[in-house]
């Protein structure tokens, strides 16, 4: 939902970042307002996941230039846990398995960290269980997931649902969903997409990272960006995704490098 007067949630300017001394992001510019859903598409290695990790504060990714403002404040100086507490959420492409740590306890501790930041009363185990069960219904998840270790032995689809469950509990301002559609069959995709749509509010924003149009059939983006060579090559509406589905990325990449060719 585009509203030019809405709050500017995220402003990325000339962002350069590297991992293992390998430059990946080479000048990303992006503005996201409240109420908007942005999709970022691009080939493998184009920098999509790097962008998500940099925004979430992964210690392996080093920012060499540029700035990121979250609601007007410098995001890059904050520790990853602080970013999460103030409302930045990353739905992982490959959610991490943590044997021995109960999913229920993990969800409760993380939810209470966010609630503390919001100055809302923290939940005891009983009150939290009530809350989490209501959110489970949103994603049609079996309560048995709560008893298991975090993501351990979960199928690909179950892991992705568990990510969206966390999003539902943390109620972030800005969510980055990194290839949430990968590993999902069509039914699971619809359930997850319905959950994301339900959680999308006029005061929040979402950045979807995906390879495929099929997710965008379920979640309609306001903007579609194509990444390549570590920057955003083209921005358009949802019709751009359809064009990519039909013609691939090659024409766009050629177009963006052609001015440099002799």
């Amino acid at each position: 939902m585009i509203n030019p007067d809405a709050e500017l949630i995220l402003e990325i300017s000339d962002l350069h970042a590297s991992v293992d001394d390998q430059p990946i992001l080479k000048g990303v510019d992006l503005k996201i307002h409240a109420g908007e859903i942005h999709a970022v598409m691009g080939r493998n290695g184009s920098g999509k996941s790097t962008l998500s990790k940099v925004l979430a504060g992964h210690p392996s990714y080093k920012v060499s230039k540029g700035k990121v403002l979250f609601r007007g404040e410098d995001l890059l100086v904050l520790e990853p846990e602080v970013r999460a507490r103030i409302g930045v959420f990353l739905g992982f492409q490959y959610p991490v398995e943590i044997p021995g740590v109960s999913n229920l306890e993990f969800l409760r501790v993380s939810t209470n960290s966010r609630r503390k930041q919001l100055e809302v009363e923290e939940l005891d185990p009983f009150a939290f269980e009530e809350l989490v069960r209501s959110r489970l219904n949103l994603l049609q998840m079996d309560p048995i997931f709560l008893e298991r270790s975090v993501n351990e032995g979960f199928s690909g689809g179950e892991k992705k649902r568990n990510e969206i469950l966390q999003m539902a509990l943390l109620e972030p301002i800005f969510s980055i969903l990194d290839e949430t559609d990968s590993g999902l069959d069509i039914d699971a995709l619809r359930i997850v997409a319905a959950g994301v749509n339900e959680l999308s509010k006029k005061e929040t924003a979402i950045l979807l990272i995906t390879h495929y149009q099929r997710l965008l059939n379920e979640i309609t983006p306001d903007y579609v960006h194509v990444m390549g060579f570590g920057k955003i090559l083209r921005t358009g509406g949802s019709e751009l995704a359809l064009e990519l589905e039909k013609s691939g990325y090659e024409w766009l990449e050629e177009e963006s490098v052609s001015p440099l060719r002799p």
Partner: protein
Amino acid sequence: MVRRRICIAFKAVSMSFHDSKWFNSLPTPKGDLEKIQRRGREYLDLIGMPKKSDEAWRFTDLSRLSSLFNLPFLLNNPTNKIRKNIPLPSSKFEGFQLVISPGFDPLESVDLPDGFTQLSTAELDGILGRTIDKCSCNDEWLVAVNNSCTYRVLGLRINGDNLPPLELVLDSREDAFVATRIVLIVESKTKFDLFQVLLGKNNSAHSHLLEMHIGSDACVNHGWLARGTKESGYFATLAIEQDIRSQYAFSSVQEGWSFGRLEQKIVQESGYASTALRGLQVSKGKEQIVNNSTIRFDGPEGVLDQLQKAIAVDYSHSIFNGSIEVPRIAQRTSASQLSRNLLLSKHARIDTKPQLKIVADDVKCTHGATVSQLQEEQVFYMLSRGISHEDAMRLLLKGYCEEIVRTLPVSGSRWGVLSNLLEGV
């Protein structure tokens, strides 16, 4: 006379034994166990203290071991009848508890529940040492130490499939060296939960030896919690003999010992049996904690599933040696051993060594060992959910330990194992 002879021999071999308070406080061999006491002392007489050149003691802090022998031996007789400060949990226990404390007969004024009977002196005479022989550990130094100072043995025969869990609490005494010895005969088809708790005291040493014969088709779930305190030391040998088609699950937790050493000796004597071993060593400060396991398959189609974990912080040292022996007779053995270790300080040290001796040609044996820090991706995943670094570490360590702790027999939960383990890590 015998005492004098041993003194002279020790002087020749190892001054530390001769000079030790432990040695000088040992009573003259006597009673029903005199033969065993003499055998132990003769062995020590010959061998002396362990040396760094012995593979089994290569990583051991021998000075710390020696210091435990500077404590006087406390004979388990009525004159030492002072029981104090045994921190038993107050929660209700739906089982049967025996406390073995210096100076006390654990069976005094106790009615054994149905299915448990005390072994007579004559029975013990025929059984004592048999499982040690079967496990080929009669010539081991720790066994010899226990033999040298065994003056009382708790022997039980266990029979039935609806038995209450047995909790055996082994108490130590401040400023003293104590020894305990237990023989358990688990009859065929018996199902039985055993939880042993060994408690250290300040400036104490404890030598423990368990012999357990598990009959055919029997099923034993055995837990071991060794909880020390500052300047406490212990060494225990658990010798287990498994008959055909028996199932033996063992879970151990060791923590808080200035020096702690657990030796597991298991033999599947006729095959078709299964053994599951789970172990956790947590060392802090300058502690040194050792876990050595040896399993031998003396029959076909035996199964082993072993997971050993350790957490080492500060300046501590954790050691694991896991030996698996598969002779020719043990065809179609399936054994897996995994040693996963967390090294959480640059000054701490972990030594882990799998040893596989495989002669049979139709077997499946796997092993692996890792020493690492907490996984960065797991930590980041938690941070990305707003969890503080401190809480993330706590949750990850709890989860790491939980994988072992949850396999302890039910009564383990009332000992607050997890909260105790993570204190100060």
